[in-house]
């Protein structure tokens, strides 16, 4: 399996992505500078990493969404290729309009870093197929702008088409405002496009995969991807 990790000026989770996909999963994982115009031949997954691309100038992810490599990432997605955006990567995918919505400043107005729980809302995706619907897993968040927002009509559409992949929840899987760390509408932590091949999420599954470094709640997603590619 070949994974491309686009690297923007200000990306700082690119090495987490490289470690998770390359070292832990053993996939052929290649960093790709944002000025490149082509993804490596045979790329199956594009992992858009977290960080502060372009210093969050204008809006988080807005400038990265225009980087030269994004045109080829769009082509990859349009062809059904998998794209996973985490944290700033999620913001970039929204700004690039590969996913709907926007990530606003956290309701608390603070940067939040914490281990949180997510409930799997869609277990039929290449990103989640090794997990069960309603399964709860623990992964870290680390962001100031993770407050997912969409206008009410589009939010209703997103919910109706099953576009919500993950919701914040209690350790037991209960949903509710008390378990939403950042004010995100409907407790949305991650969403997927209509075709099911582009997923964006604020939490960091790639930071919870190596037992040498701590908990491994993020492994379910990586096992899912491994399964998806074994079948392909």
């Amino acid at each position, binding site marked *: 399996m070949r994974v491309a990790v686009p690297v923007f000026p200000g990306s700082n989770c690119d090495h987490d992505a490289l470690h998770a996909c390359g070292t832990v999963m053993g996939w052929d994982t290649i960093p790709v500078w944002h000025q490149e115009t082509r993804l490596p031949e045979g790329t199956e997954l594009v992992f858009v990493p977290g960080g502060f691309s372009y210093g969050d100038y*204008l*809006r988080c992810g*807005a400038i990265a969404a*225009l980087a030269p490599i994004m045109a080829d990432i769009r082509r990859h997605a349009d062809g059904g290729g998998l794209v996973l955006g985490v944290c700033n990567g999620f913001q970039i995918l*929204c*700004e690039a309009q590969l996913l*709907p*919505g*926007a990530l*606003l*400043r956290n*309701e608390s*107005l603070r940067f939040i870093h914490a281990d949180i729980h997510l409930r799997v809302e869609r277990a039929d995706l290449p990103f989640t197929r090794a997990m069960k619907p309603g399964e709860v897993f623990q992964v870290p968040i680390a962001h100031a702008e993770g*407050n997912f*927002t*969409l*206008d009410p009509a589009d939010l209703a559409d997103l919910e109706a088409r099953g576009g919500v992949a993950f919701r914040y929840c209690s350790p037991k899987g209960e949903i509710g405002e008390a378990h939403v760390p950042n*004010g995100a509408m409907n407790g949305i932590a991650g969403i997927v496009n209509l075709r099911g091949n582009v997923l964006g999420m604020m939490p960091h599954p790639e930071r919870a995969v190596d037992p040498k470094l701590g908990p491994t709640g993020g492994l379910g997603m990586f096992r899912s991807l491994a399964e998806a590619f074994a079948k392909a």
Partner: protein
Amino acid sequence: MKVRVSVQLKPGILDPQGKAVEQGLHGFGFEVEHVRIGRLIDMDVPGTDPVEVKAKALAMCEKLLVNPVMEKASIEVL
């Protein structure tokens, strides 16, 4: 021609900067509410026809300057 694009958060969208500044003003004893902070973008756009120049600025708003999920803009040709 000189163009000024003013970008504001839509009503109802949380504005932490505005809130912080409002609290700061309250600290000085000013009675003030609904403080909202936006962004002003000034630029020179080639052309002499204000209608045409404004149309160009509108296209810039749609492509990059404004995120319609959370922001709205007004354009002034100066």
